[in-house]
């Protein structure tokens, strides 16, 4: 199938392109990107006038719960939500429901996505068995099975385990993803520690819980000469530690998520469980530091940190509520609104954070509109405004902290492997044949 996206503003930082022109997609790849392309006879034409045409978002941080929890996110529901959010590659991480510590689980998810998916799905495997932080998983086995990185998505508290994990992963050339939260400092905490937690009478998680782990993991990256990817970064001190480590040539990269640069801990006031997330929402000062880190390239990527939960997980007392925000459907628009519309970030820098940057970090498909690259494209409506409505999410997780918020930059079209998987907010109903091969 051929698709000609006409008159959009094509923003492709991988080639320093920012130009109103036409983009022709054919046979699953980018066929041409020029001014005034004439449509081949068999091509469908999409008018993108006034919109941005960008490489699809590469989301480094999503969770799903298939096959363990029937009431939570499945491969199919995640895929429809991703398509609605302008995401063309979703990277799923281990969690309690799906520990991804053996090759059978990784291959199940990949085969399920081939049969039911709309967007590309790539797994991160666990670093330790059962996410217990004690012994390493069969990292080599998992990498040959398709895992692009290893990491437990929770802190590996034993430094020797982390050190050995880095050494072992180095031989298989995959980065280790580190979750920066010291469990002993964070124990029992449900929100950021400070005046707001005191006012609400809730137990806090201090900023130091993050900085302690970030500095330890920077030291281990230096010792093992291997890549640590910190995910997510939420406090000012951690941004600064990573900035300095990068300047010293240490192999450390990081990402963050829109709720860490749009919302503060005050979103929790009123005991709003939809603002309960791990790591917790931080202070105004941290929000500004995260934005500065995004602006100067210290932070390499913006990910959704999509944790889809059911109503029973959230409609309970604050202490008992589960951590997490459902974000894959909204994070591109939220990030656009906060960074480009709100903070004057350049379009190229924004696209780098949501697409080119994360694709490059992990060697993922997408992130570029170079001729011959996979036809993974998102069209963003940057002129219109829309209101986020949790009830209409494709995701099974309606647990957003952004319900009712007006945003710009909403994805109007998502294309994966040359096939349209979302148009005007409607996700495709049948699986994407481009994924079957």
């Amino acid at each position, binding site marked *: 199938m051929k698709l000609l996206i006409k008159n959009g503003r094509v923003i492709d930082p991988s080639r320093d392109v920012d130009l109103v022109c036409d983009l022709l997609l054919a046979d699953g790849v980018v066929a041409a990107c020029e001014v005034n392309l004439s449509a081949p006879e068999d091509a469908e034409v999409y008018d993108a006038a006034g919109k941005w045409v960008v490489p699809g978002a590469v989301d480094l941080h999503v969770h799903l719960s298939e096959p363990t929890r029937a009431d939570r996110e499945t491969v199919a529901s995640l895929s429809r939500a991703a398509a609605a959010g302008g995401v063309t590659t979703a990277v799923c991480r281990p969690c309690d429901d799906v520990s991804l510590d053996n090759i059978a689980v990784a291959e199940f998810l990949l085969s399920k996505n081939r049969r039911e998916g709309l967007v590309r799905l790539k797994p991160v495997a666990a670093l330790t068995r059962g996410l217990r932080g004690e012994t390493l998983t069969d990292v080599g086995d998992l990498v040959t099975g398709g895992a692009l990185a290893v990491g437990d998505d929770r802190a590996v508290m034993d430094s020797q*385990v982390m050190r050995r994990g880095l*050494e*072992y992963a*180095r031989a298989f050339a995959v980065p280790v993803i580190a979750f920066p939260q010291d469990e002993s400092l964070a124990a029992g905490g449900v929100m950021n520690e400070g005046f707001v937690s005191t006012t609400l009478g809730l137990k806090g998680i201090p900023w130091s819980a993050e900085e302690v782990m970030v500095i330890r993991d920077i030291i281990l990256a230096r010792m093992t000469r291997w890549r640590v990817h910190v995910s997510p970064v939420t406090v000012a001190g951690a941004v600064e530690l990573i900035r300095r480590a990068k300047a010293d040539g240490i192999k450390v990269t990081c990402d963050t998520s829109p709720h860490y640069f749009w919302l503060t801990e005050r979103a929790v006031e009123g005991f709003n469980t939809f603002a309960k997330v791990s790591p917790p929402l931080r202070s105004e000062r941290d929000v500004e530091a995260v934005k500065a880190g995004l602006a100067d390239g210290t932070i390499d990527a913006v990910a959704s940190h999509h944790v889809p939960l059911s109503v029973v997980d959230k409609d309970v007392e604050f202490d008992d509520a589960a951590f997490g925000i459902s974000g894959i459907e909204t994070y591109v628009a939220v990030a656009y609104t906060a960074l480009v519309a709100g903070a004057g970030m350049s379009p190229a820098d924004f696209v780098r954070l949501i697409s080119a940057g994360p694709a490059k970090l992990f060697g993922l498909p997408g992130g570029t509109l170079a001729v011959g690259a996979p036809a993974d494209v998102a069209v963003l409506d940057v002129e219109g405004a829309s209101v986020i409505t949790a009830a209409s999410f494709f995701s099974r997780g309606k647990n957003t902290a952004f319900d009712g918020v007006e945003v710009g930059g909403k994805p109007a079209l998502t294309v994966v492997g040359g096939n349209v998987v979302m148009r005007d907010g409607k996700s495709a109903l049948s699986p994407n044949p481009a994924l079957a091969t």
Partner: protein
Amino acid sequence: MGAEVTLVGPSTLIPPGVDQFRVRVATRIEDGIAGADVILLSRVEITDANRLQIPSLREYARFYCLTPRRLALAADDALVLHSGSMNRGVEISPEVADYAFPLLVQQVTNGIAVRMAVLYLLAGERE
């Protein structure tokens, strides 16, 4: 003694600074044994001391077991030796173990004589 030595194993088992012995280090067995005249294997098992360094014996075997296919990368008629007490299917495949067996018997026999000589020297070598 003039030999060019390559140490092969997962990076977690490579001792720090070992390259200062003028030993080449490889983390892929295919890289390490290419063209080798002699391959000396070590018994691999998981103990309390190394449980953080080897994820599992299955994983170790997948990436480091000396199989006929990997042995074919070494020099023709390469000698396969073993430090003793083979773990078949871990560091050495059953096929390679059977192939190497006659030489290993000789290695073990020689080992007895060498140990006896060492003990004799250490004991003071008096008539």
